[in-house]
């Protein structure tokens, strides 16, 4: 692993992406330990139509673990870079590569990573990809670099899902984790809420109001095939997948009020989970699959509770505010991200589930909603409001490095981060 320099970065870096990208990414914040890395323009990347190096640099910066060094040099993966030159530019690592069009229309994407401080090659790859997969190729390069230099898996080739609203229509979209490459999964005249990725990343459950009531659907992402998961009397909502993907928890009003139920991924085998006179909703499985977190106002106002599926004790875990909702649990089960109301502000907080620490606010905005963890547990995506629009943001767990995924046209909300393994 690379020795890292302590570095404090003030201000923001605007990373420009090709014009046809739906999102521009604005990254800001002060990071405690950021590895300075130079990602040079890949030879002939312009001819591919994608700024591969810019995508890689933006991915690395958004992770909070890297700071991009401007690098205007004509290198590729076959180069023998002069390390003293790069050290004098204050880079600890260097990336160079190339993109070559193949006779069959695919592209050969190659790169190499160097440790500038020690003057070593750390590795590289060469991959032939379809034109449609060039962005994914860039994200995979960023993942490789992230893992090589930090020891932790990168999440750049994962996907997110989110809902847009604009022009009287709603869409459910699937995009790269940097917000770009969005594809429409569902186009509707009525609202879509609460998307939830299946653990294998092949399906998304969501709530659609297309039948003039809340109904839970499960849709295969690749094929668009969908099925009704829950359409009982009244409202059906808040789908949450068990870690093994076989069961979902949902909120149903079929027996009066809003209560939690479990059913199979095919919509069978309905079992009631909560039995209270209150509102019980927003279930989330614990990563070990044995427990469930949920929101209930059984104590008077909405708070977050947890329960074991095997038992009946329910334990309240939020106390600092009169209104706490939308729990999301980190993959290691140690941290909860959620939304608390303080005065008129709805703000993103994290709570250490293993100790007695106080909740920590991650933002200073006032309309946060819908937090969701990246599969490596190091980033949270959420929605907030800025300049009169709903926007998507990512943040490191300490709240220090934030990136704004900007939409130029529609309001974006309800983001949810997909799993590894595309």
């Amino acid at each position: 692993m690379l020795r890292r320099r302590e570095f404090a970065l003030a201000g923001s870096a605007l990373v420009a992406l090709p014009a046809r990208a739906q999102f521009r990414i604005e990254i800001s914040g002060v990071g405690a330990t950021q590895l300075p890395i130079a990602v040079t323009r890949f030879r002939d990347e312009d001819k591919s139509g994608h700024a591969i190096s810019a995508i890689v640099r933006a991915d690395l910066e958004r992770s909070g673990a890297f700071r991009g060094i401007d690098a205007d040099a004509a290198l590729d993966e076959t180069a023998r870079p002069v390390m003293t030159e790069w050290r004098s530019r204050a880079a600890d690592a260097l990336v160079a590569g190339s993109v070559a069009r193949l006779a069959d229309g695919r592209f050969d994407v190659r790169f190499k990573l160097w440790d500038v401080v020690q003057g070593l090659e750390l590795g590289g790859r060469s991959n032939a990809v379809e034109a449609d997969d060039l962005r994914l190729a860039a994200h995979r390069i960023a993942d490789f670099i992230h893992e090589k230099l930090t020891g932790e898996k990168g999440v750049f080739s994962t996907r997110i899902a989110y809902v847009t609203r604009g022009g009287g229509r709603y869409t459910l979209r699937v995009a790269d984790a940097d917000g770009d490459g969005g594809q429409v999964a569902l186009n509707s005249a009525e609202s879509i809420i609460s998307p939830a990725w299946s653990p294998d990343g092949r399906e998304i459950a969501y709530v659609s109001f297309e039948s003039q009531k809340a109904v839970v659907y499960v849709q295969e992402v690749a094929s668009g095939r969908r099925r009704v998961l829950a359409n009982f009397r009244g409202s059906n909502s808040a789908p949450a997948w068990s870690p093994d993907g076989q069961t979902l928890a949902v909120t149903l009003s079929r027996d009066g009020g809003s209560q939690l139920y479990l059913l199979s991924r095919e919509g069978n085998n309905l079992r009631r989970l909560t039995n209270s006179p209150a509102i019980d909703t927003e279930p989330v499985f614990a990563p070990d699959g044995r427990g469930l977190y949920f929101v209930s106002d059984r104590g008077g106002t909405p708070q977050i509770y947890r329960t074991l599926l095997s038992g009946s004790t329910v334990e309240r875990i939020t106390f600092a505010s009169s209104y706490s909702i939308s729990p999301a649990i980190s993959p290691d089960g140690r941290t909860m991200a959620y939304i608390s109301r303080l005065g008129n502000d709805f703000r993103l907080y994290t709570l250490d589930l293993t100790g007695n620490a106080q909740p920590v606010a991650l933002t200073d905005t006032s309309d946060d909603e819908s937090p969701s963890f990246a599969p490596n547990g190091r980033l949270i995506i959420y929605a907030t409001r800025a300049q009169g629009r709903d926007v998507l943001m990512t943040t490191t767990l300490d709240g220090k490095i934030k990136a704004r995924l900007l939409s130029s046209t529609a309001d974006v909300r309800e983001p949810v981060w997909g799993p590894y393994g595309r």
Partner: protein
Amino acid sequence: MTSMKQALIVMSTLVLLFGCSSTKLDSDVPVETRSTAATSSGSGAANSGQALAGTSSAATGGTAQSAVTPVDLTKVSPVVASNLPRVVYFDFDSYVVREEYRAAIETYAKLLAQDRNKRLAIEGHTDERGGREYNLALGQKRAEAVAKSLALFGAKEAQVDAVSFGKERPAVQGSDESAWAKNRRAELTSR
């Protein structure tokens, strides 16, 4: 359970549902008679006039002892469901159906009792503040409160669909109390 106890339970539920209302019948609501169409508090004048005419002709018209004067309900203006308020508004953080809607709900219930094929959807809504799923549940509570009052006035559960749109379908855009007040509502629509 004795019928006395049943009556007490119904009455106390009514009191709970309608806040601090008394359970005396509103004396201004026309009493349904056999020879008139059911009337509603909203349309008082027109229908009562017709009703009275019908009644009096039945009582005095015709010289034969066996004369029967038909009253054609299909010609009488329909149970002015169109005059009934379609929206019930709620106070902040509340699911209590305010007293002012009691008479209208009673009439809706009568409509449903008269025609078992009629269905009513009650769509509950909230203002924009707060989370989507929690607000969906709040809207559901509002819809169910109206459904419960309908049931107490005689509507069958199968005729009433209580659903919620949470904050997804505001009636009025805006982030002030006047907009919020118009969004905290339950809408009644025929299905």
